[in-house]
């Protein structure tokens, strides 16, 4: 067959998906995406998995990476002479643990593995060959400060991780709740006890004697006269008593807090009360439970709120009304406020005191009914956490089955969880995290944030356990989903800000700025020369890993490779152009790069259906980029317009600059010397000037300098009075004599009373008084 014919066959496959005996080979399981070539065996690689679901330490350390732990420990041994040996053993132990986890020997599949058990088993295994491994393993272990389940990326991972983080958050909530309840109960009991101790009953001789029970029988207890003491106490101090209403209220809240069933009591209580469960597998059940417990929750939250007020002495049974000159403001009393507590709904902040509901569901089980329930649950604003786990992203959409031949048959591309995600985003106050299982460790901080978020949170996780990827580990399938944008990483945090750009984060995706992540791919050709090319990872590459879609690809034998075979991203651009030109038969075919089982580079043609799916997924990614603030078309437009306006303004300014005369700037000379002179007027003169200017012959006080010494007010409290700041002023100059004014001025130690001129010319002894007043005027 000549080259021409082969090219036609390739185009025919691209257009129809038919081989036509063209020498093209079917794609089978032995081919892998080129970028995975080096990761055939994940147990040999040091990467972030497996994870330790740590049950020790702070919530920030809830999810740890095995390799990370080893690195941390080795780093801590920086100064240690055995560091290198221990590090080498650490890596070997890690590998051993990975192997055991991937191919469990002593453990049934799906059963959680215990970190300590696996670590010790690995140590025992390796110690057989090298006796120092045991020591290394022990020393590393001592530095880990971690224990709990060890999990690898598999079907169970999403729910294990999410549930673990949830329970860590709940544990810290429980601690906070118990501390608060304990503090409140202690103080409430103290209020009740104080009443008893202060009552006549509490002062009876028996009670006083009981207070010294420890000394019972000692000489002190027998000689002390408790009867006399009781008489003295009862006579000396009136009994203090709580009002009946307050006592009943306090007793009521004590009982409510004691009986609560939202948290497991710290110490086992007798009786059959059992704490409520908060993990559900259907949203309907969670909502039902919430409704059933609602009244109980209201009672508890109300009791806690009242308790806070009571222990601070801030509870006011009835309100008050403040009447100002014109307005009157009424403050309702707490009795009234608490009467209707919770009737208008409980807000998320209050509910955050109680445990959060966790619902774990599989997207494959989501019918219309369940989907509705989830939407309802998320739209309540309740602190509910919903995990939807997706195992199959490429499941064909409802109307299609198995293949994509009919044009209307799109790939679902996680349509069920995507619907949920869209709805959740539109609810605007739901925290959202979408992530592949492989990304969960990197996103642990966002996961924790979502779990602690004051409102509903939605977690959509792709497990990578599709059942259609042969023996490719779930971790790689999950990672490929992220890489290909089939399942992009999304964090939507309503508490981060008020607009899309702050709330929606897509920067945890690989190369978030680009259409696809592009990686350099190096290989040797037949002549053993190293070649390097940039390979993008697209949805087509992801589809090629899936048993159900291999028929959309055809391997081209190396001898038939040609210039017409171009990479998928180029082909997407090209086909748009060709389509615009009305070209029916394209001149090129899209290709992906793979490796076969002998690590030979291979290329496969992508047929048109698969290319169109890739285009669709790219469009979705692009929209997401825009929402996330990357390549935003509105922003681009706005920038363009602003630039145009700025250019216009600039042009105008230039014009006016040319026409307007240059401004003449005159240096302003400050009359510095004059200012300095004005400042240097002596204090006495200033006071005199002020006196003459503003007070004339009237007496006055420099009120701001008054020291509240009571001298003047004692001379005449009608004439001299204090203002709101307790500083003296002349309240009524006619309320006393000039003599009093002069005497007060003389008595005032800070000399701030100025008597002015006498008002009554007939007052006796005025001549002398005027002379005495002179220094103060």
């Amino acid at each position, binding site marked *: 067959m000549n080259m021409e014919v082969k090219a036609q066959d390739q185009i025919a496959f691209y257009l129809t998906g038919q081989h036509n005996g063209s020498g093209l080979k079917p794609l089978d399981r032995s081919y892998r995406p080129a970028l995975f070539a080096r990761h055939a065996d994940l147990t040999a690689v040091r990467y972030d998995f497996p994870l330790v679901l740590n049950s020790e330490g702070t919530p920030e350390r809830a999810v740890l990476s095995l390799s990370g732990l080893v690195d941390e420990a080795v780093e801590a041994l920086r100064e240690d002479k055995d560091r290198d040996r221990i590090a080498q053993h650490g890596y070997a132990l890690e590998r051993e643990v990975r192997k055991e986890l991937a191919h469990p020997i002593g453990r049934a599949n799906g059963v959680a593995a215990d970190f300590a058990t696996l670590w010790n088993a690995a140590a025992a295994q390796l110690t057989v060959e090298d006796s120092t491994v045991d020591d290394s393993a022990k020393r590393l272990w001592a530095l880990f400060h971690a224990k709990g389940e060890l999990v690898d990326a598999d079907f169970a991972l999403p729910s294990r991780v999410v549930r673990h983080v949830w329970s860590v958050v709940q544990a810290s909530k429980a601690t906070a709740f118990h501390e608060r309840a304990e503090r409140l109960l202690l103080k409430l009991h103290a209020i009740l006890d104080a009443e008893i101790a202060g009552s006549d009953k509490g002062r009876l001789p028996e009670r006083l004697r009981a207070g010294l029970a420890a000394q019972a029988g000692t000489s002190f207890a027998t000689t002390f006269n408790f009867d006399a003491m009781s008489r003295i106490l009862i006579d000396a101090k009136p009994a203090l008593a709580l009002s009946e209403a307050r006592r009943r209220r306090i007793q009521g809240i004590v009982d409510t807090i004691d009986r609560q069933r939202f948290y497991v009591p710290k110490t086992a209580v007798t009786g059959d009360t059992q704490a409520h469960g908060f993990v559900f597998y259907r949203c309907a059940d969670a909502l039902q439970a919430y409704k059933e417990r609602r009244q109980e929750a209201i009672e508890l939250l109300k009791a806690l709120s009242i308790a806070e007020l009571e222990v601070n002495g801030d509870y006011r049974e009835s309100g008050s009304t403040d009447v100002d000159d014109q307005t009157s403001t009424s403050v309702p009393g707490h009795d009234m406020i608490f009467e209707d507590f919770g009737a208008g709904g409980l807000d998320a902040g209050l509910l955050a005191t109680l445990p959060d509901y966790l619902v774990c569901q599989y997207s494959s089980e989501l019918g219309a009914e369940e989907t509705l329930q989830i939407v309802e649950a998320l739209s309540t604003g309740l602190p509910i956490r919903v995990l939807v786990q997706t195992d199959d992203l490429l499941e064909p959409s409802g109307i299609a089955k198995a293949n994509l031949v009919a044009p209307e048959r799109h790939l679902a591309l996680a349509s069920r969880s995507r619907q949920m995600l869209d709805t959740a985003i539109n609810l605007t106050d739901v925290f959202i995290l979408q992530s592949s299982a492989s990304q969960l460790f990197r996103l642990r901080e966002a996961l924790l944030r979502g779990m602690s978020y004051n409102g509903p949170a939605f977690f959509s996780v792709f497990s990578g356990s599709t059942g259609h990827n042969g023996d490719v580990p779930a971790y790689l399938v999950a990672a490929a989903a992220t890489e290909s944008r089939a399942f992009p990483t999304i964090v939507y945090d309503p508490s981060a800000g008020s607009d899309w750009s702050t709330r929606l984060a897509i920067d945890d995706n690989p190369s978030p700025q680009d259409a696809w992540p592009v990686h350099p791919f190096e290989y040797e050709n037949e002549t053993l020369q190293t070649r390097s090319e940039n390979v993008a990872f697209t949805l087509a590459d992801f589809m090629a890993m899936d048993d159900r879609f291999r028929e959309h690809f055809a391997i081209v034998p190396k001898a038939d490779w040609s210039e017409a075979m171009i990479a998928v991203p180029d082909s997407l651009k090209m086909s748009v152009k060709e389509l615009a030109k009305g070209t029916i038969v394209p001149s090129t075919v899209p290709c992906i790069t793979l490796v076969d089982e002998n690590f030979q580079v291979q290329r496969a043609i992508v047929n048109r259906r698969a290319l169109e799916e890739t285009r669709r997924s790219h469009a979705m990614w692009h929209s997401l980029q825009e929402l996330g603030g990357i390549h935003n*078309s509105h922003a681009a437009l706005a920038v363009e317009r602003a630039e145009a306006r700025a250019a216009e303004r600039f042009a105008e300014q230039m014009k006016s600059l040319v026409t307007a005369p240059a401004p003449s700037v005159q240096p302003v000379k400050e009359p510095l010397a004059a200012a300095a002179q004005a400042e240097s007027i002596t204090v006495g003169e200033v006071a005199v000037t002020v006196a003459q200017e503003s007070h004339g012959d009237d007496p006055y006080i420099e009120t701001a300098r008054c020291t509240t010494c009571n001298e003047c007010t004692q001379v005449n409290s009608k004439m001299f009075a204090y203002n709101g700041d307790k500083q003296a002023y002349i309240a009524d100059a006619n309320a006393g004599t000039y003599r009093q004014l002069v005497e007060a001025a003389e008595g005032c130690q800070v000399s701030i009373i100025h008597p002015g001129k006498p008002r009554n010319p007939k007052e006796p002894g005025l001549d002398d008084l005027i002379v005495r007043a002179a220094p103060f005027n």
Partner: protein
Amino acid sequence: MNDTTMNGIAKSGAMTFPLPLAPVNVNDCLLELYEEHYELEDYQKGVPRWCTGCGDNAILTAVQRLCRDEKLAPEKTVFVSGIGCSSRLPHYMNTYGFHSLHGRALPIAEGIRLARPDLKVFVNMGDGDCCSIGAAHWIHAIRYNMNMTAMLHDNNIYGLTKKQASPTSPIGLKTNTTPRGSYLEALNPLSVTLGVSNVSFVAQVVDWIPKLLYQTLSAAYHHKGFSFVRIIQRCPEWLPTHMDDYLHDPQRVLLLHHENGLEIDSELAKRYTNMEEHDPSNLNRAREIASGSDPIPVGILYRNDDVPLYEEVRSDSRLRTTSLVKNGLEAEFDKFTIWPEGQTRAKHEAA
């Protein structure tokens, strides 16, 4: 580029959403509702028994104004004092008060800080109270740096007991215990305070400049740590002319000001033109200034916000339940308990 909507999310870069409601705690909003507005009268109690003209009156007014302006709930505020004329101040405050023992105001205030960290603590002491019998407590209170505002009412004399020399009486002052004039150089409370490790706030002010007195006490109150304010206080009863020269000559006070210290308003600046710009973080300069007594330096001499607070260093988050206290005590006692042969606490309790 594809211009349809993605999965039903309308494309929009400029769309904004209202912020989610901030977490509201019902207690917060109710307490807000009751936030009181206070008048000076709310802090006044009784009629001060101090002599007419006594500088303690000015100090009382200043703290009452401070409490009002800071809206300090009377039931969340405590004034602690020792014994002396000045120590009567808590009686005239309608807050909690502790008129304690001569010289012992500070240890009691420290106890209050530890047991009731929710209270604002003020301490009023006389010069005899603080610098003589209470000197040991004073030194250690500076070093412990617990959050409180300590005022030294320094009238250079024992007022209450009728005119005996105090450690701050200037050399030559004639008193009942030093009829020929006191023999020793006076103790300088500022220098002492500035010499103790961990010192975090030292200020000096005179009772006769109300504005400055208020500003200084306010700065002291806002400082987190042990704020020591020496207030030069007139005792017209025993030393009627003692301060007159300073009182009538504005040049004999030196106003310390700085953007990190006190900002002097124009009224004051007009009268008190003798000023120095002094950075309160400069300890060495503070010590130099402290050593001068004429003119009297007034304002903030030293402030360091980074000194750790003892109550924070030693804070115990455990709830002081009866059982915690009891178990703690039992554990201590057990260290010294000698049980009869074969007996243990466990057995004892079981029996």
